[in-house]
């Protein structure tokens, strides 16, 4: 029997959806009947809804409540996750690539002296070696690598969000609850949180919008985003941007879609003046439908788009906007 330990997350006093995604990912790694999925929740508040985790496939839930386990206290999470690790001695550990996970997972791995597989979009067990095999985009998404853990005792995997679908929960499942009391000495926390400045993008949050209208360098100017805002408003969607736009200061980086920006999966993603660099597509390629308006017929974006218009947005966009308004 082996333990598969995953670190769930709590945000705004709720279990965040990434926790359920991680359980689905862990399910792909069950090799023997009796392999056990352990979900750890480390937080300053433990939501009542933790019982739901069993319905999603958790077999053990480990709760660690401590006021120092607030999001910015990475050092506290690292100390606590090491204790949880020692308690369950898992063969496989899963984290999500979130603001928190991408800091905690690697540091835990290095503490243990074991390798970590970053940003995985698929997982499985190699039939020969019984070790974890992962698939991950590299070179900004221009290439896909398959890697397998060599002879190591612990395999730590960081999972890309929004790749694994939570399962449909079964009713009234029960499991084991382990409450772990971890003493955290404030002196061990080397970086001190001072303040957080939240800059939500205007309107519907980019990550949950069903329609996203995004602009790139091809828009030429910050003020041209007004057209995109108008379009987004008519369609009940949100505005996004490429990194080039955020770097130029036309929009804040909260609007950035891509490898180092947000990952979005809207039903409709309309891009205007975006070339479709692999690092941009890394954040939006799972959109159900992609529309591209670009004057360069060879732009990479047309390889990922379902519908395309080759031409200058200056002429196309106003007519498109008008027609969309009429149709709505």
């Amino acid at each position, binding site marked *: 029997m082996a333990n598969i330990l995953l670190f769930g997350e709590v945000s705004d006093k709720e279990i965040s959806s990434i926790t359920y995604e991680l359980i689905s990912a862990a399910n792909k790694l069950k090799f023997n009947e009796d392999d056990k999925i352990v979900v750890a929740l480390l937080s300053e508040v433990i939501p009542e809804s933790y019982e739901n985790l069993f319905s999603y496939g958790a077999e053990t839930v480990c709760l660690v409540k401590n006021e120092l386990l607030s999001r910015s206290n990475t050092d506290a999470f690292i100390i606590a996750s090491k204790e949880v690790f020692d308690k369950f001695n898992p063969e496989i550990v899963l984290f999500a690539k979130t*603001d928190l996970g991408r800091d905690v997972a690697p540091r835990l791995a290095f503490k243990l002296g074991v390798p*970590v597989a970053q940003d995985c979009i698929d997982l499985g067990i190699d039939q020969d070696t019984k070790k974890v095999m992962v698939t991950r985009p590299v070179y900004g998404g221009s*290439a896909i690598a398959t890697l397998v853990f060599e002879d190591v005792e612990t395999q730590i995997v960081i999972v890309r969000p929004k790749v694994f679908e939570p399962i449909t929960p079964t009713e009234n499942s029960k499991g084991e609850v382990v409450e772990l009391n971890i003493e955290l000495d404030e002196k061990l926390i080397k*970086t001190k949180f001072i303040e957080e400045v939240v800059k939500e993008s205007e309107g519907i949050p980019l990550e949950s919008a069903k329609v996203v209208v995004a602009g790139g360098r091809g828009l030429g100017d910050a003020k041209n985003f007004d057209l995109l805002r108008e379009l987004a408003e008519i369609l009940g969607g949100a505005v996004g941007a490429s990194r080039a736009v955020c770097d130029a200061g036309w929009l804040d980086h*909260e609007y950035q879609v891509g490898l180092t920006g947000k990952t979005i999966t809207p039903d409709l993603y309309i891009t205007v003046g975006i070339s479709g660099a692999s690092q941009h597509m890394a954040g939006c390629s799972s959109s159900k439908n992609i529309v591209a308006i670009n004057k360069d017929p060879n732009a990479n974006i047309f390889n990922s788009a379902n519908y*395309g218009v080759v031409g200058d947005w200056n002429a196309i966009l106003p007519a498109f906007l008008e*027609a969309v308004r009429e149709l709505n």
Partner: protein
Amino acid sequence: MLNILVCIKQVIDPEMPSSAFSINTSSKKVEEPDGIPPVINGFCENAVEAALRIKDVSDANITILSIGNKFVTEVMKKPLSMGADELILIEGPEFENLDPLSTVNVLRAAIQKLGSFDLILCGRQASDWDNALVPLGLSEMLDFPCITIGQKIEIVDQGLIVQRTLSNGYEIVESSLPALVTVTNELGDPRYPNLKGIMAASRKIPTIWNSKDLDLDLETLIPKLKLIDLKIPITDKQCEIIEGGDDEETGRNLALKLREAKLI
């Protein structure tokens, strides 16, 4: 005086046209594109800029450190022409396929040989393997406080204050020195080398070390995650190109098409 170390990596230019991107399937490596020179990883240049901004306002010495194989000296000297003081290159074929764990071990060996640093700056991730792992490992190994994805770094008294980019805004954190900070492009563009900088850099000779200089046990440099396949993803999407008599009609046709497909 503040002793700053910036770790940089030479990478294949991530902005090269996708048509120039190819993989050698037998060696499972990305081919170096013909005629497109490598670059310093973008976020590493941001880290150099962060160091220079500190040096702009306080007394600091900036050492640049890189591990790799087949360095292009002209490329790697850029931080010197931007205003950094020293360049250390650790070079050899054994460093070609280092995994993060080994990279950290080599960096640590080099840092031990170089002396002590108050601040280590790294890029938030390298644009080849997009790992974002080396700096976190280095901080663990050196037992330094670790602050990731810094967009603004300020030295105060005996410590530092960093603005960290978050997906919805930023947060401000504080730590003592020595510390390690990773830097993101939100910090702002790296400065262009000026003539004086270029002249100064041309007179500087990088220190070049190999694995013997660092007493490295090559056995420990074997990756623990084995690469079994590397390929270019295939996009099988068929893009339907919308046309019209003129641009306006095309724009209208696009709207009609999306309505027909029940997308709007």
